[in-house]
């Protein structure tokens, strides 16, 4: 196997070995959201005219699970390696910064997608869903998990302690996710908040992802994909620059 292939394999093996924590638990947590919100809101809200709230909610929750787990994977793996010192095993071999970046982000994509697929599969037992444009679903899931995997890598590179990663997650990732329209359509928001949501890149990922299911969305999915793609490119450039410099990894 190549250096990159080995690092990717190691990152996959790492979360697979603790799959209860990294896959089963987030699937269960997300399903609890579904159970509670769908129960409370059922019959009270219709979205896009005819879509029942529970059906509207499922793609939002799936995407939320994808994003959060992609972030968790790269950030926690890297900070653990930094704090325990075993990052040295990856810094001594001739791995390039590209290898390093691609392996961590791809493993995050896989973890995000696996958890998302788990949530989706179980949800289908309770909620009827349509799949209008499956390719859009996959494209947005990939872009979203890659963006969050990259953000996780940035957080892991920057942080020196576990609580700094937790702060990044609590003060950046969670607000951006919860305020992105996971639980509501932004058209139900007052104008001010609707305007503000448009500055949140996570909103486009979730809106576009939803389009794949219902064929309806708040924003043109092409625009959403362009915005997600541009975000990914910018974050990738930033991360590669950090890795190339060895920022907080090589002194």
């Amino acid at each position, binding site marked *: *196997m*190549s*250096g990159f*292939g*080995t*690092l990717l*394999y*190691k990152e996959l*093996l*790492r979360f697979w*070995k*603790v799959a209860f924590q990294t896959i089963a638990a987030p699937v269960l947590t997300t399903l609890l959201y579904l159970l509670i919100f769908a129960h409370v809101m059922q019959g009270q809200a219709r979205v896009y005219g005819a879509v029942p709230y529970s059906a509207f909610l499922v793609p939002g929750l799936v995407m939320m699970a994808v994003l959060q787990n992609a972030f968790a994977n790269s950030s926690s793996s890297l900070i653990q*390696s930094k704090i*325990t*010192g*075993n990052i*040295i*095993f*990856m*810094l*001594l*071999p*001739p*791995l*390039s910064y590209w290898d390093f970046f691609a392996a961590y982000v791809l493993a995050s994509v896989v973890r995000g997608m696996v958890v998302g697929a788990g949530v989706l599969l179980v949800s289908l037992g309770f909620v009827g869903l349509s799949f209008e444009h499956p390719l859009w679903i996959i494209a947005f899931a990939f872009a979203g998990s890659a963006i969050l995997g990259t953000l996780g890598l940035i957080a892991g590179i920057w942080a020196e302690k576990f609580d700094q990663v937790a702060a990044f997650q609590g003060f950046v990732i969670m607000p951006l996710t919860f305020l992105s329209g996971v639980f509501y359509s932004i058209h139900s928001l007052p104008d001010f908040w609707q305007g503000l949501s448009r500055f949140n890149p996570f909103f486009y990922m979730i809106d576009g992802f939803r389009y794949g299911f219902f064929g309806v969305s708040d924003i043109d999915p092409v625009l959403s994909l362009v915005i997600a793609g541009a975000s990914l490119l910018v974050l990738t450039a930033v991360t590669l620059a950090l890795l190339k410099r*060895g920022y907080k990894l*090589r*002194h």
Partner: protein
Amino acid sequence: MTPAIQIQQVHKRFGAVQALSGIDLDVAPGEFFGLLGPNGAGKTTLINILAGLVRADRGSVRVMGHDVVADYRESRRALGVVPQELVFDPFFSVRETLRLQSGYFGLKHNDAWIDEVMQHLDLTGKAEANMRSLSGGMKRRVLVAQALVHKPPVIVLDEPTAGVDVELRQGLWEFVRGLNRDGHTIVLTTHYLEEAEALCGRIAMLKQGRIVALDTTSNLINRWDGLYLKLRISGAALPAALAARVRDRRDAVHTLRLRNIGEVEGVLAQVREAGAQLEELELLQPDLEDVFVQIMHMEEGERKGGRDASAFPAPAAPHP
């Protein structure tokens, strides 16, 4: 012949601390080389620059002719590093750890060599055990094995025997000697000077980021112009005139510093005049520790402006 390691004018500063100031050093292929110095002298910084973990502010470093920055892939393939800290990845078993490490170097079908390394280091019985379950000594062996998975021609051991029991230390040195006999270049840092003396053909001593001595081990020891006289006396105390010579004392056994063999007569006469009876006498040759202490001390004297007038070092401090 291309040096195994070539270090030229390397400088490194961490904030206010000048860790290395102008290191020049060549290590020839096949050498067993020692890097000694007190804590904070810059040994680990130098090794980390060699390994690409730290970047030098100035100067160049080559491993087997490959620049550690420009040709980092080749230089890292040529180098195996056993880090000082006892680090491990708690997710994996010993075999997984070694396979992954081998894979990071892009090696395929390396299981035969991994098995061989495990066997040499007595790890075969623990191959499937999780890293967390191993004792400190076993974890240290895995670190050595990890440094060897890609068969590097140059091996650096950064204080590999700190906190390791005697048996493992012996076994480890036997193994490393074997590697050296097979042609590997070895660079060792250690605080156990008797280990360095027994193993290293050549030694560099570092202090405050500078090389203050660089020579073969035997030349370094010969450089020391003194020797020791060990006496057991009875009947009277050691005369006060000899107190300045005492290196250490255990009950009636005194170890005195001498400048040369000619001083033996005078010392014995003084002991006799004091009315003491000579029970036992032994002449001791200096060892690397004496030289180390002397060199570290002389440096300080020079810094204060002029070499110490006395040829004798201050009472030996505990191992730095």
